[in-house]
């Protein structure tokens, strides 16, 4: 009991913050189950509970939720896989190969990856508007164009993140293969790639979450209801009509969050490792 009293303030701090953390989550769960469908008006516990709001997501033509989910999955998985493939190759070159201009290249990469690509959004808007005139499949207002911008934007950060991981994989194996006469691409595909597969999978998933959660560029590009990702779709759906659409919106939010939260929590270790890697070393 004595240790509990000594630690009492620790528990109180934790519980105060848990209340703060859990409050909106509780509200969302309750609102999604509230069959009246409006903002929570009467009490913290809805008088009638049911799954009407969830059913609406799948039946109501006004909310093509499944289409949005499909679009999000499509955009986010292509971005994640392709950008990790390309980023891994660049990261490998910077980590393992020795060539002139390597140091300069890494510094340039480090500098580029700090600028989020949406900082140049007015330029992107204008450029992709021009691209649309020539390539209607890849300009402003198209999923293809959005994909291209995502691929470019995630290249810097993914290459940088992967370089950190690759640096921590021992180089002995590559070296022995090189002594045996293997070429750089053989070493990459046959020795390094299988070895780094778990790490690549983690970065792919992180990149997937990042793209899934992206809003600014997606809202700039995806104007058609049927093209929207979950982020843009739900934002447009709720925008200005909080009182009417709150119920289905919270249900959709809940469904969209759960897989992301699960992926995130299972990758916790890597995320936290990645967060502090840069600083603790110094």
């Amino acid at each position, binding site marked *: 009991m004595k240790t509990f009293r000594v630690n009492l303030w620790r528990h109180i701090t*934790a519980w105060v913050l848990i209340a703060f953390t859990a409050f*909106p989550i509780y509200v969302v769960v309750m609102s999604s189950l509230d069959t009246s469908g409006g903002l929570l008006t009467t009490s913290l516990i809805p008088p009638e509970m049911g799954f009407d709001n969830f059913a609406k997501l799948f039946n109501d033509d006004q909310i093509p939720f499944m289409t949005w989910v499909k679009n999000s999955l499509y955009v986010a998985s292509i971005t994640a896989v392709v950008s990790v493939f390309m980023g891994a190759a660049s990261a490998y070159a910077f980590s393992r190969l020795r060539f002139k201009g390597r140091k300069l290249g890494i510094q340039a990469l480090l500098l580029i990856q700090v600028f989020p690509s949406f900082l140049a959004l*007015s330029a992107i808007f204008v450029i992709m508007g021009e691209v649309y005139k020539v390539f209607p499949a890849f300009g402003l207002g198209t999923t293809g164009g959005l994909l291209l911008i995502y691929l470019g934007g995630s*290249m810097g950060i993914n290459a940088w993140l992967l370089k950190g991981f690759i640096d921590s994989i021992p180089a002995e194996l590559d070296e022995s293969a090189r002594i045996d006469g293997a070429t*750089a691409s053989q070493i990459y595909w046959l020795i390094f790639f299988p070895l780094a597969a778990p790490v690549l999978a983690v970065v792919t998933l992180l990149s997937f979450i990042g793209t899934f959660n992206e809003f600014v560029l997606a809202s700039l590009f995806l104007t058609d209801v049927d093209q929207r990702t979950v982020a843009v779709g739900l934002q447009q759906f709720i925008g200005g009509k909080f009182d009417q659409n709150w119920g289905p919106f919270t249900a959709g939010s809940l469904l969209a969050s759960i897989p992301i939260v699960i992926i995130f929590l299972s990758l916790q270790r890597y995320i936290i490792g990645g967060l502090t890697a840069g600083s603790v070393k110094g």
Partner: protein
Amino acid sequence: MLYRLAGFRGLPATILKFILLAIVDIIGGIAITQAIAGRATVMIVVLAAILLGVNYVYLFRAPVQWKFLTPGLVFLAAFVLTPIIYTVGMSGFNYTTGNEISRDEAIAALVDNSLAEDPEGTAYDITLGKDSNGDMSALMMNQIDGVVSLATLDGVTPLEEGTYELSEFGVPNAAEGFTAYTPDEIAELGDKITEVRFPLGDGSFASPIYEELAVRLTQDLTYDPKTDTLTSMSTGIVYKDNGNGNFADPADPDNQDSKLYPGWRAVNFPDNFKGLLFDPEIRNPFIGVFGWTVAFAFLSVITTFAVGLTLAIAMDKPIRGRRMYRSILILPYAIPGFLSILIWRGMFQRDFGIINRLLTDFGLISANIDWFENTWTARAVILIVNLWLGFPYMYLIASGALQAIPAELKEAAAIDGASPFQSFRQIVLPLLLQILNPLLISSFAFNFNNFNIIYLLTGGGPRDELNGERAGSTDILISYAYQTAITNPLDQNFGLASAISLFMFIIVGVLSMWSLRRSKALEEF
């Protein structure tokens, strides 16, 4: 060894490589063809350079690192570097709604748009068809003088009586070298009919209104390339280039009404920057936005770090339930941010939001508060929501850093008689700040550009839209740039938005360099 057993050296790998390269070449080839068709010179050059480069790297013995770097570099250069360079360029232009096209396009559009029906109201009864070249042409009869002529895209030839035939309504409908369209062909042409201009030779045109009637259009403005002026036939005004992307009446070149639209994007460097610094109408909102951006980013870092650090210290001992606490407390970091923000926005909604409801129930307020209509409550809401979103991150990095501080230091302090608070204040905290400094700076930079929270929570408002105010009182630089460049299609200013973006580039760049130096990341390789 492994790679020999796999037989990767040799045929299969080479074939795979050629297949991939062939796919890239085919896609690239199609793209270049389309670019040529669209006459996009810049894109043709860029695409060709990329395609040649890629083929060189993978077909010839280019240095091996290029085989690894090329795919990533192409995307980085095309979709990250190009927009940055473009931003720099655009900031030197008058690039606004009404000034979006090139100078030649603008002149062509001005001349073309100045077509008007002639004052006498000349009209023609027509029959549309094909001339001997297969191009669209028309047999027309002037309704006033009854002269019949064959109009083609090249000009007009009057026809002698007897060389044409009239229909039952007295409209010429057959002549040599002329084939009338069938009703199906007319239907297929649709609205294209009204875009046709048959030159009449005196600077005016005959233009069909529908398939049986054309009117005479005269052109009010004529462009003279020698003097580079546009002259109006009706008013006699000679318009000159005002040096800022428009032709204007030289008597009053700065008056909005004397400018001709569309204009073109003209170099006006350094007007956009000068405006931000000296023109009170642009400068004052900019300074306001800039001040709030810095305050918002700073306060966000301070509040999230204070709460995160307190939590990290509280959880630094293996207390009961720590794992459970921890997995709940990092949820805000795991839930997609855009959703959390929208949910908070619903909770702060004036009439139905749970927050006003609870405050009323507890008797704290008597009337619902309109959180987003008042500058200060809106700002407070932003900081509260950002605290919710951000404290778990700070908790995670602070607890990581706490573990990195050797326990001996604290023990030594305790032996020397320091109280726990003293040891924290004088030993732990300085070390912690030193370790976390780069991450705190990055966090500042992140919040500096935290578009989502502003855009989704308040939309930058409250904003006095009736008075045409662009900068809302919770706008930060990035949302202000968005507002300036994109939100209102009738009032876009890409040049100014790019100048604002450049300020952000510089600030983010300086902050990041500072942070990287602190973490010594730059010296590691």
